[in-house]
């Protein structure tokens, strides 16, 4: 069975895999065999090495009193002073709270959205319709938040916005969505879904396309309705993809995109909309407290890493393949 599959995927009819003893196939031979693939990887590896690992050296200013005059090397060490300041400040915890809350909403509402959409799209029979809808759905992903922010503000304006005009038809008083601490998170999540759901469907639809159609036929013959088929075949089929994307999303638990929040934020809703990224922007870039801002960023990165490790392990324990 395995050798047959081996022949089909490798396309080398000459040597059945069984005749080459596994012990002799050293790592080096594998690398050499795939040398061109590794060559392709080289620029990407170099990029990551230079811009993600070498720059980690700059994170050391979180433990120093960074002064431009002294540079990164010359600034004096202060140990955990900045972290102590952060943990003692109410602001910091409030900001973390906001970040976690918004990400929780994201997890509950925005994470399943592409899955649901993909399921719906998967059921479409007319290819041309499926394609058109899919293309239209992922267009918002490419629009910058600067533009989207302006559009959303106009749409939701109590006096000139479409949404409130529609609400008015039902006799509802105009609601100032953007300045209400109750509605702002809703606007944030809905705009997240609108912008990113279409993009997510691409991944899920690819996973769904890989499910053996024979399974669907078998289920239909056994008398399963559409919903049953989805529940028992499609969803389990994309379990692996969901698991991987879940791990990735968990890594972003401490991270809410700066552009998105900054463009929707205003003075009336700082208490719910101030997140780690805007906080770092304010104290780091605007107030030039580079060390403090780096400490926040470092904290964010470490927590994200821990979360990814935990969730990955959990997911693997549950039987799915994790990220690694």
């Amino acid at each position, binding site marked *: 069975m395995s050798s047959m599959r081996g022949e089909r995927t490798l396309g080398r009819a000459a040597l059945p895999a069984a005749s080459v003893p596994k012990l002799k196939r050293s790592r080096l031979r594998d690398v050499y065999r795939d040398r061109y693939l590794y*060559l392709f990887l080289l620029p990407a590896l170099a990029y990551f090495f230079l811009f993600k690992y070498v720059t980690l050296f700059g994170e050391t200013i979180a433990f120093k009193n960074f002064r*431009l*005059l002294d540079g*990164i*090397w010359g600034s004096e060490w202060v140990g955990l002073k900045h972290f102590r300041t952060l943990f003692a400040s109410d602001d910091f915890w409030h900001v973390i709270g906001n970040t976690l809350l918004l990400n929780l909403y994201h997890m509950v509402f925005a994470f399943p959205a592409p899955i649901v959409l993909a399921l719906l799209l998967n059921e479409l029979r007319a290819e041309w319709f499926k394609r058109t809808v899919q293309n239209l759905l992922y267009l918002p992903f490419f629009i910058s938040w600067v533009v989207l922010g302006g559009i959303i503000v106009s749409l939701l304006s109590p006096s000139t916005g479409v949404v409130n005009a529609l609400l008015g038809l039902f006799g509802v008083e105009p609601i100032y969505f953007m300045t209400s601490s109750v509605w702002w998170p809703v606007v944030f999540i809905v705009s997240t879904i609108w912008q990113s759901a279409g993009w997510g469907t691409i991944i899920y639809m690819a996973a769904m396309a890989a499910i053996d159609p024979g399974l669907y036929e078998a289920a239909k013959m056994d008398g399963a309705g559409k919903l049953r088929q989805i529940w028992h075949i499609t969803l389990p089929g994309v379990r692996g993809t969901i698991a991987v994307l879940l791990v990735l999303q968990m890594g972003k638990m401490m991270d809410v995109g700066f552009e998105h929040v900054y463009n929707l934020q*205003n*003075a009336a809703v700082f208490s719910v909309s101030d997140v780690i990224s805007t906080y770092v922007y304010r*104290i780091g870039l*605007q107030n030039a407290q580079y060390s403090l801002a780096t400490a926040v960023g470092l904290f964010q990165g470490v927590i994200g890493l821990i979360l990814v490790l935990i969730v990955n392990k959990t997911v693997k324990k549950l039987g799915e393949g994790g990220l690694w």
Partner: protein
Amino acid sequence: MSEKKRNESKRIRKSIMPLMALAVLGTAALSGCSSDNANDKGASEGAPSEQATASAALPKEITASIYDRGAVAAGEGTYEDNRWTRYINEHSGVQVNWVPIPRNQEADKFNVLIASGQAPDLLTTYNRDFIVRWASEGAIQPLDEYIEKYSTSYKAYLEAHPELKPYLTLEDGKTYAIASLRPTRANTAIFIRQDWLDKLGLSMPKTVEELIEVARAFRDNDPDGNGKKDTIPMAMSTSYMAITDDWFMARSGEWFVEDGKVVQSFFTDRYKSALEFRQLAYKEELVDKEFATDKEFSRQKQLWTTGRSGIFFSNVNMDNTMSDLRKNDPNSKLSVVPPLETPFGTNGYQLEVPNHLLTAFNKDMKNPQAAIEYIDWLIDEGWEPLTYGTQGEHYELKGDIPVTLDLDKYKTEVSYAAEYRLVQQERMTPEYVTARAGEDPNDRDLAALKSTIIRNSETFDFRKDFPYVPPVAEYSTIASQFEAKWKEINTRAAMTGMTADKAIEDIRQAWDSLGGDQATAKVQAWYDANKDKLK
């Protein structure tokens, strides 16, 4: 078969080698680039005198920052390259390369430029805090020696205007910035539709209470005569909060001295009145309800220029907005609201600090002599064409005063040039402003308004206990976080039924949680040590 395979693999191996080498070289080159930048910092020292002899031989080229207000029309070019940058390069003897800084993002733009080692030679800002911070970070250098050694005209100017000195020197007694006097110290102003006042038979308000009455009348009595009650009486700008605070001598975020004790404006008993005014304005629909999302105040400006508002909280140099209103409604007549009385007295409108733009020298500047030459040329003669334009084309001389020929042409071709005047000698007196306006009755009206504003600024006192922000580190580190907080509390207080007392309590809590008591103590100490210098 194995023979063929071996030859094939040999060939592939041969072509791999150069590819691999290329990849490795590429990586090495990139890593070389990045480590270069890290080594660069801290390398340049060299005492000014060494630089002096060296700079005489250097090409006369400098880089300078300039505020980007989006005012350069596409036909004129860009902030880096337009008729005035070319004029400067031709006539000053110095090549200046300009780095635009968006006006309302100067904080982060400057910080990013400085931190990445890309800051221009001349750093220009209105904000003295930046100069203080840059000096403490070691990003800028003292200028006393350069002015002494190389400058002629500016040196003389500085000696003639010693009142500038305290704003240019820092705690260590050295001069860190170059600046000239502001053309006028007037800044904020309230414009009002005189034609609406006349139509409704109202007189010009003299107290804040009367202003509220007038606003209510505008709201209810349909002053624009279109049969709809759609007037939003007061239009705002960044000056709204400033002016409403200034009425009660309690400008948000400023330090005041009450009985010898320093205190943040929020905790004086006058601040409550400012909060209450803004709350009332919102509740009674005297202002647009959507100001919170109107971050650039563009909607507010629109309300004014389309004639939906009758009272505009703004600034003295709003020529373009005023002429837009004129175009939309040629029958509009404007007046300036005089300083208004409150139970606490009558405070004049904001009186700006005497200095205009502050220009600091980058520590790594290669040719300070060229920079000084540029400054000298500017203060001597260079500032004039940048202010008035070209004689015969944009203005003609009536006596001593240049009179603008065509305001529209001036607006497109010359108005943005004023930004390039790091130093200037323009003196905006009421007579000067009126004479500049020329014959066009609209221009003369606008000039009359400006004259009134300037005259007010010279007649009425403006209470400002601290001429500049006390350079106390404990305060600077919390200032911007505190600002975000009190801005939010202010907006919320204006928009909800929160009592003013509760709002002030919230501000007090925010202040305390940021370590405000410590900051206050340090500012008090600084004040006690320096209060004589502040007079």
